[in-house]
């Protein structure tokens, strides 16, 4: 991984997994204050994103991965609120800031949001307003984050549409989003996110709503964009195949916590956490016999309010240690130079 990215290094800035992280999330906690009680959707999450690389965040629905992504930009909807943590971000200028020091609606936060850190979403069809033309919506981003004139912005937007592979770009600018296909809209959304030259792109399940062929095209496009623009990607998905395809590093989340993180090869070759192992064995492989029953993870995700005591995964865990896992919570510890895991099997 590291060697691959190092070969096409074009800028002065160091990049790759050995460089200083562009984003480091520490002890992030985002809670939802509902009538039924507090839901700890994100409950102490840590990970680093290195410049020019892709961090894949993986987990089942409801594990808090999308909320983590939204927390970085501080766009968590009520009743959700970031209650604790740090999000260190190294700006273009090299200056390091804690994003959580900026109030969500402050000018400084908004300059970063959509400018230096962009985000794309899961459902391209509903992520655009169908009452406004596509041009109007991409222009909004350019107006906010550049000082260009109206004509220059139009040129730039058309240019970006062409780069993401949309035919007849200048004509498409005047059209309404419902005239685009799903794949085209996802491309358009990528153009809209990329046109401000962000250093980090957060992609929240950008391929989930697309068919497999389009999915592959979008992944290729994202990789091309990453190489051309020297940009870090935070890629959120529940699809391990996509992770294998695009990520350099993986962070596995379960019920709002990170259970394992490390380089993608290590994750697939030698997963540490019982949950990661269970996830990997539930993938059908070429070598699975045709009548063979696919193993699955026993039980189902508990309701966030009925969070099991101790390690949240213990009721479903194959390696459950009675009297330990259901009582204490494990910490995220380094097992070797690259891999971290949160499990008593690896604690001394």
């Amino acid at each position, binding site marked *: 991984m590291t060697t691959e990215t190092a070969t096409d290094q074009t800028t002065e800035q160091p990049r790759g997994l050995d460089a200083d992280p562009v984003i480091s999330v520490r002890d992030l906690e985002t809670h939802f204050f509902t009538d039924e009680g507090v839901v700890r959707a994100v409950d102490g999450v840590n990970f680093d994103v290195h410049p020019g690389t892709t961090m894949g965040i993986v987990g089942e629905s409801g594990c808090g991965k999308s909320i983590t992504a939204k927390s970085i930009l501080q766009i968590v909807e009520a009743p959700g609120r970031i209650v604790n943590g740090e999000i260190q971000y190294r700006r273009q200028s090299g200056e390091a800031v804690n994003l959580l020091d900026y109030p969500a609606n402050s000018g400084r936060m908004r300059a*970063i*949001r959509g400018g230096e850190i962009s985000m794309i979403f899961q459902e391209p069809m509903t*992520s655009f*307003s169908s*009452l*406004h033309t596509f041009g109007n919506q991409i222009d909004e981003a350019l107006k906010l984050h550049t000082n260009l004139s109206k004509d220059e912005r139009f040129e730039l937007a058309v240019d970006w549409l062409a780069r993401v592979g949309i035919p007849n770009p200048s004509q498409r600018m005047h059209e*309404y989003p419902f005239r685009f296909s799903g794949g085209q809209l996802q491309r358009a959304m990528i153009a*809209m996110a990329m046109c401000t030259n962000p250093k980090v792109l957060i992609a929240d399940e950008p391929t989930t709503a697309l068919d497999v062929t389009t999915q592959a095209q979008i992944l290729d496009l994202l990789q091309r964009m990453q190489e051309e623009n020297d940009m870090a990607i935070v890629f959120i998905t529940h699809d391990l195949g996509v992770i294998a395809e695009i990520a350099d590093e993986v962070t596995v989340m379960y019920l709002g916590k990170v259970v394992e993180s490390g380089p993608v090869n290590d994750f697939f070759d030698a997963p540490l956490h019982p949950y990661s192992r269970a996830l990997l064995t539930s993938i059908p492989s070429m070598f699975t016999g045709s009548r063979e029953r696919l193993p699955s993870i026993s039980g189902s995700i508990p309701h966030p309010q009925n969070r099991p005591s101790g390690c949240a995964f213990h009721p479903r865990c194959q390696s459950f240690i009675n009297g330990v896992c259901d009582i204490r919570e494990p910490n995220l510890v380094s097992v070797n130079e690259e891999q971290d895991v949160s499990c008593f099997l690896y604690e001394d």
Partner: protein
Amino acid sequence: MLSFIIRRTIYAIIAMWAVSVISFVIINLPAGDFVTTYIATQAATGNVILADEAENLRDVYGLNDPIYVQYVKWITRIVRGELGFSFEFNAPVRQVIEQNLANTLLLALGSVVFIWIVGIPIGIYSAVKQYSPGDYVATFLGFLGLGIPDFLIALVVAYLVFDHFGILLTGLYSAEYLTAPWSFGKALDLAQHLVLPVIILGTAGTASLIRIMRANLLDELKKPYVTTARAKGVTEWQLIMKYPVRYALNPVLSLTAYILPFLISGSVVLSYVLDLPTVGRDFLRALTAQDIYLSGAIILGTGWLTIIGTFFSDLLLAWVDPRIRLEGD
């Protein structure tokens, strides 16, 4: 879009026909025909109408024809603009209606403006600041406005004004301007008299607009396109005004053509309590006097007006939504 217009037009025509039948049934419901009523009213003033004269009248008005022939004759006359004669006002129905039409429209239009100016901002505020004290107050006021019948509000307000200031809150013009030609003073006087009726007539509409606006906006605020805009770094208020409010407003604004006729019919009761010179007041007088040509014309008129209003509302609603406007292009 074209097929949409055609479909709507056919539907509107059917609805107008249905309303005309209902109106015709209503004016024919009272026992005896209107000649009987006419004879009775004439007798009260000392004029005796002989039996053969009455029969003659029935022939003239086609009252001896089968009921469907009567309907066809009646509706043909209406379409030609011959609305008949009002015995109660002793004038052609058309003249009676035209006389107070301007006042009626002024009152209804004033209420529409009031409903917008008050309802939309409160609705937006209520949705954006959901569960804030302001939202609760707005919601409660909304319930009050919807729950209290117009005539009760009018009665209580009129009573309070009378009790505290000794002013009789009735009519639309002060005595000195009643027959005076139009002048700035008269317009100002009218405006002053209009304020309370406009507010009272607008309460229910305002209340429902607040609720609709709030509910629509709450729905829209959860849509992914809002998150997308937010992720672009747009300020919260800017994005709310540009996207979800636009979505939520479209139906509201296009509904104006639909609300207006309802306000006109809603002004009936209010006009009665506050003695406002509107078509509504004349309507009630016509009803109690069984002046069928006048009341029938007003029922038919408000019904048709509503259908036409709904028709235009639907077209407008389709027009502001590019998904429908561009359909089939």
